[in-house]
């Protein structure tokens, strides 16, 4: 029973840690399925986190903060699009540039606005997303098995967690069941086919990166106004890259990407709890190993040792009609 509790609690933490990954991985998916590599997830997440915290602080409302985050990440997506889609620049370079730029800019603006070494001031309750108790959670709280699962694991998260998990089937539906999704996937596979079908390639790709921006904005806002209570310099600490890895690991598809995010989130939650803890019989587990696992697993996947990850055909290639 004790162990069951522990597992539930670990899974509970997994949901919290995987939420930003899920949103960002879906963001990456929208962009990359349309043919635009999005290494800028990290930087966009950071930008979103900063805007959300700063605006939520001033307005005392997390929703306005969320909107600000999304506005910021859409702007960054448009910048990425401007470089890669309009000017046919190198997508990897543009992504790296945005990451570096945002790492500096968020801190710089943070110092200018709040003079707290790049942090934003701590947000009080009203300015953050608060946990939501699902209906009936209190009632079943003490029922064995179901109680912990419903009360501890499923209930009591903030709205963004639920949004992230609902975003996965939603993304799947959009991607595979709508005209927009069909065109988006087509433009990432063969933009020529889309063009000759009378659909604008550039517009289609812009729409895709905008979707990407919306999602990654939420992920950033989650970090600073839901999971945390302020923005900190470089607070994403590589989560954007982990999300990218999860997307690759999920072979650019929503549900497998969700699974990868949960796995990576679980590893993160486990690593956090294992720090400095001596496990009976095993001794101290090197946390660094657990922390490196997502990257190692992704490399192994990319190497084709556990199935092949086949990227969209036109990924990374700007659409050039006339040489």
């Amino acid at each position: 029973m004790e162990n069951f509790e522990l597992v539930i609690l670990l899974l509970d933490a997994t949901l919290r840690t995987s939420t930003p990954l899920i949103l960002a991985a879906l963001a990456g998916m929208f962009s990359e399925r349309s043919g635009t590599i999005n290494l800028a997830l990290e930087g966009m997440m950071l930008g979103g986190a900063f805007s959300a915290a700063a605006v939520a602080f001033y307005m005392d409302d997390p929703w306005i903060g969320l909107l600000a985050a999304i506005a910021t990440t859409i702007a960054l997506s448009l910048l990425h699009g401007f470089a890669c889609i309009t000017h046919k620049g190198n997508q990897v370079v543009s992504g790296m540039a945005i990451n570096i730029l945002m790492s500096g800019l968020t801190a710089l603006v943070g110092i200018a606005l709040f003079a707290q070494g790049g942090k934003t001031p701590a947000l009080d309750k009203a300015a953050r997303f608060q946990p939501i108790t699902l209906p009936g959670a209190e009632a079943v709280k003490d029922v064995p098995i179901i109680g912990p699962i419903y009360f501890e694991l499923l209930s009591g998260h903030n709205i963004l967690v639920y949004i992230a998990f609902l975003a996965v089937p939603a993304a799947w539906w959009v991607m595979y069941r709508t005209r927009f999704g069909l065109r988006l996937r087509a433009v990432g596979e063969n933009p020529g086919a889309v063009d000759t079908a009378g659909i604008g390639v550039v517009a289609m790709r812009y729409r895709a990166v905008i979707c990407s921006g919306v999602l990654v904005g939420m992920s950033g806002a989650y970090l600073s106004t839901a999971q945390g209570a302020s923005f900190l310099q470089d607070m994403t600490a590589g989560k954007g890259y982990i999300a990218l890895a999860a997307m690759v690991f999920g072979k650019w598809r929503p549900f497998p990407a969700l699974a990868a995010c949960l796995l990576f989130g679980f590893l993160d939650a486990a690593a956090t709890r294992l720090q400095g803890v001596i496990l009976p019989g095993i001794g101290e587990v090197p946390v660094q190993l657990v922390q490196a696992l997502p990257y190692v697993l992704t490399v192994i996947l990319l190497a084709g040792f556990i199935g092949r990850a086949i990227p969209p055909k036109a990924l990374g290639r700007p659409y050039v009609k006339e040489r």
Partner: protein
Amino acid sequence: MSTTVQLPRWIDVGALPLLNLLLALAVSGLVVLAIGENPVEVVEILLYGAFGYEEAWGYTLYYTTNFVFTGLAFAVAFHCGLFNIGAEGQAYVGGLGVTLAALYLDFLPFPIMLVIGMLAAMVFGAAWAYIPAYLQARRGSHVVITTIMFNFIASSLMVYLLVNVLRPDGSMTPESEQIAENLRLPFIHDMAAALGIEMASSPLNLSFVYAIVASVMVWLFIWHTRWGYAIRTVGSNAVAATYAGLEPGRYIIIAMMISGALASFMALNEVMGVQHRLLIDFTAGYGFVGIAVALMGRNHPFGIFLAALLFGMLYQGGAELSFEIPTISNDMVVVIQGLVILFTGAMEHMFRPRVTKIYTAWRLRRDAQEAA
């Protein structure tokens, strides 16, 4: 018959990149304005901090040294058509090589250690680059993603080693022991003093000379040897390379390993030259600066040297800046770095069509006048 003419070299590799750079700097100026400071003052402080006094020069060139290495590292891989985002990790692991050699072979005399230290860094850096290279060459895994992953893996590995293995007993900071005196690269000011020249003390050390030598060697290698030729062929047209009997995979691996070795020279500067011990995160993002440096320098050693100098100046001047204007932290330099990559890298084509048009119009008019 033709409506466009080829741009002359001075525009192609000179004016256009300069235009992009100026745009990046102009936008940086706007950022400074936006946060309520005076860009002119900022530039003054930057320049003073970078060149205003003797010691500053030393610091500027010390940073330049790092950027030359990481810039060259990026460029060599780039000539083979590869985006090596992993200089950071390669340098980090290269630092491990130097440290291990230093800690376990400290009985060897100085000149031998100079060579051994260099070799150790190169071997470790190249080995760390080898895995992504192999995966790209033989299994088609995209080197961009794998090198990013390898940066993180290197970081975890090094934390583990520093915390659990290399940290001396009783020490709280996760850093290795100091390396022996005979393993340290001599400082330039000490070398100058030995020649009777007085110089201000700075971290500038022998590895700056390595940087210059490495630049020349990379230039010779890329444009004046058949291996460089092979790498460029693979980079521009892998099918043509196969046709020419140059197996692309092989040169991908070679280029990446050279790239990793060059990145690891940065560790030489930091570990053997300045810090004299292995620090956590001593790479401090210098690997990423290398991308900006290489893109700005058009992947040519000479351009890289100039770009590295610019960034060395920004780094050193930026440190001064954060001392002088508290609202402008070192992050300003990071912003400039991001903007430079954005404008000279990702948006390098932005002005080309327009400049080509203007130049063509000018040429056609001139030709017409000459004909008349």
